[in-house]
């Protein structure tokens, strides 16, 4: 009996102790939709790191609809006054929520850890509202990549990756003549828009990209450069196989892998597919930036919502600091296939494509040719992005002329602003 009491007392004591510890290092609830494969693994790393610091992690994964379901849940939670501490939310979406007064800033953490000096300025400005950090980036994905199958290219006598769209067209014509599909593509609006923005970068350069797709300058949107971009997109429609409609991006990647197609234009999450199939970069598949000497930036981030209570506020700050720690940025991005958002993390464990991405990123920051992605919700609000997607995908799937497309696009963007 006495023995029992002792054990009980000890258990209670331990219980108090652990509860006390958890309280000491905060609680976070994290809302995200990383539920599959490498993504789930990556978010698991974050959970592990947070718990290693003694905090309590409440996971709220909401899968479905590429985040649409999660956003619906988030809206309901914010209206009810009970938001999660951190939400997987990116780009101008951060500003939209900040304007609603729904966010907490983590400026004190950011200042103490000097985030300004380690993040690319373009990315840092997206993470800030009113000059204060309200979100922390976990990675950088590059959108303007060619992925290619070297064996297929060798058949057509191609040894170098294209550096201009004209070069690409010549290669593609040759491949097509030989009966090989030049471009593996999935006909979903966001994929059409991904190709489109890479084309705009290649035809107009980074400054034009910024003017047209970020600042939404009417003059740039109706310019000849824009018409030329649509002409190139029309040309690329001919390089796609007949079944592209509705295909998922990973199936398009598989076409390149299996040698059914030569190129794919896709962000570096496509690399994950190659690596998962045991392919080696440089040998089984090639990566090279699309023309334009720029860098189209996509970045996932966690945005901090207005929670209250010391425990949750503490947890939020611990999480912010953890997300930006070099160790975490390394492990997370090794799992997800992207590169760290911090530019000062050594890339010794990363593959050749990631190292190339990092080099180009630094060069792009220096030359001011780093641009946020329109197709991946980094540049413009979702409403404007939606209008872009409508026009681009409608153009790609019909015989609309480039002049009409430009006019429709300019009108649509004006309407959505």
């Amino acid at each position, binding site marked *: 009996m006495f023995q029992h009491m002792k054990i009980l007392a000890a258990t209670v004591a331990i219980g108090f102790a652990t509860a006390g510890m958890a309280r000491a290092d905060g609680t976070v609830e994290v809302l995200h939709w990383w539920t599959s494969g490498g993504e789930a693994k990556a978010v698991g790393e974050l959970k592990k790191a947070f718990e290693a610091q003694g905090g309590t992690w409440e996971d709220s994964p909401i899968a479905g609809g590429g985040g649409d379901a999660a956003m619906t849940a988030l809206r309901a939670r914010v209206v009810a006054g009970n938001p999660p501490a951190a939400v997987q939310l990116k780009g101008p979406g951060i500003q939209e929520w900040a304007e*609603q007064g729904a966010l907490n800033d983590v400026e004190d953490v950011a200042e103490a850890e000097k985030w300004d000096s380690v993040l690319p300025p373009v990315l840092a400005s997206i993470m800030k509202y009113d000059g204060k950090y309200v979100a922390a980036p976990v990675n950088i994905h590059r959108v303007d990549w060619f992925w290619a199958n070297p064996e297929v290219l060798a058949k057509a006598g191609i040894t170098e990756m294209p550096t201009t769209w004209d070069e690409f067209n010549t290669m593609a014509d040759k491949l097509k003549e030989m009966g090989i599909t030049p471009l593996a593509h999935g006909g*979903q*609006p966001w994929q059409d828009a991904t190709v489109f923005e890479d084309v705009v970068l290649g035809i107009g350069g980074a400054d034009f990209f910024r003017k047209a797709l970020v600042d939404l300058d009417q003059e740039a949107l109706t310019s000849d450069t824009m018409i030329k971009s649509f002409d190139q997109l029309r040309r690329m429609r001919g390089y796609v196989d007949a*079944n592209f409609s509705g295909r998922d991006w990973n199936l398009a990647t598989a076409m390149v892998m299996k040698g059914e197609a030569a190129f794919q234009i896709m962000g570096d999450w496509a690399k994950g597919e190659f690596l998962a199939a045991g392919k080696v970069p440089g040998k089984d598949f090639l990566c090279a930036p699309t023309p334009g000497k720029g860098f189209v930036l996509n970045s996932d981030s966690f945005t901090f919502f207005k929670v209250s209570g010391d425990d949750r506020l503490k947890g939020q700050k611990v999480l912010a600091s953890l997300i930006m720690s070099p160790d975490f940025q390394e492990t997370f991005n090794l799992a997800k296939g992207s590169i760290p958002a911090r530019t000062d993390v050594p890339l010794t464990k990363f593959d050749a494509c990631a190292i190339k991405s990092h080099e180009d990123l630094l060069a792009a920051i220096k030359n001011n040719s780093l641009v946020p992605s329109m197709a991946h919700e980094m540049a413009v609000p*979702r409403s404007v992005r939606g209008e872009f997607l409508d026009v681009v995908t409608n153009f790609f799937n019909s015989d609309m002329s480039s002049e009409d497309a430009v006019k429709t696009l300019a009108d*649509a963007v004006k309407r959505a602003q």
Partner: protein
Amino acid sequence: MDAQANHRTFSRTFERWLPKIVVSPLFAASLVFVYGFIAWTVYISFTKSGVMPNYTFDGLAQYDRLWGTPRWYVALWNLFVFSTLFIAISTAIGILLAILLDQRVRAEGFIRTVYLYPMALSFIVTGTVWKWILNPGLGLERLMHMAGFTDFTFDWLVNSRMAIYTVVIAGVWQSSGYAMALFLAGLRSVDDEILKAASIDGAGPVRIYSSIVLPMMRPVFLSTIIILAHLAIKSFDLVIALTGGGPGYATDMPATFMYAFAFQRSELGVAAASAVMMLMTVTAIIVPYLYSELRRTGR
């Protein structure tokens, strides 16, 4: 005595009130969750709502945007094309199958089940199956190519001008069996004596069906068309599964349009305006029908 009388009056009052008491929670629930939210949606459509509901009044600006969006016209036109063809073809096939089955064929029960079976599937399953059948590199076209007919093309699913018709095909496949069952029940209820009398008078089978049987089945037509019409208007899942609204937004319907704007684009205001337009359309169809039905029963 008194107590008994009291008891009787009480139980009578209770009996009179019981149905009202039982129904009232349901009534209250539908008042809030149906009509309350309809009112809320209408209100939202007149506000500046974007990513979150915003109760600042904004007049007709959201309707302006809605009617200035080309995609909305595509959605409306698709709804018109789809529902017209879907209802017409399903009804026609339904009647034809019903008449053929009505000829006292052998194994009728088995055949009837076969035709009715698609109805047991959800539109999601139907959409997915037809997506594979109609995919040029996977289904029918490829089959024909393998069989040696290499000139055969059937690319409606990926052709933005024809894609809406693939939705019609899948919808008809799903629902014409159901229409057949309704018509068959109607045909069976026609009195045999009338048919005998007609054939004694020398009317052939075509004449009997076209002049006697079908006109007698007017109520069956009405209920079939109403059931098919509501299937057509709420056909959201079929489009999502079959084409995802694509290629581009060529097969968008008002329901998918509304979903895209509310949940993918953070434009609650425009989405609410489109929902109100859908409500108005349905009202415009239902009210005259209800009016004529109620007047008839009132008489």
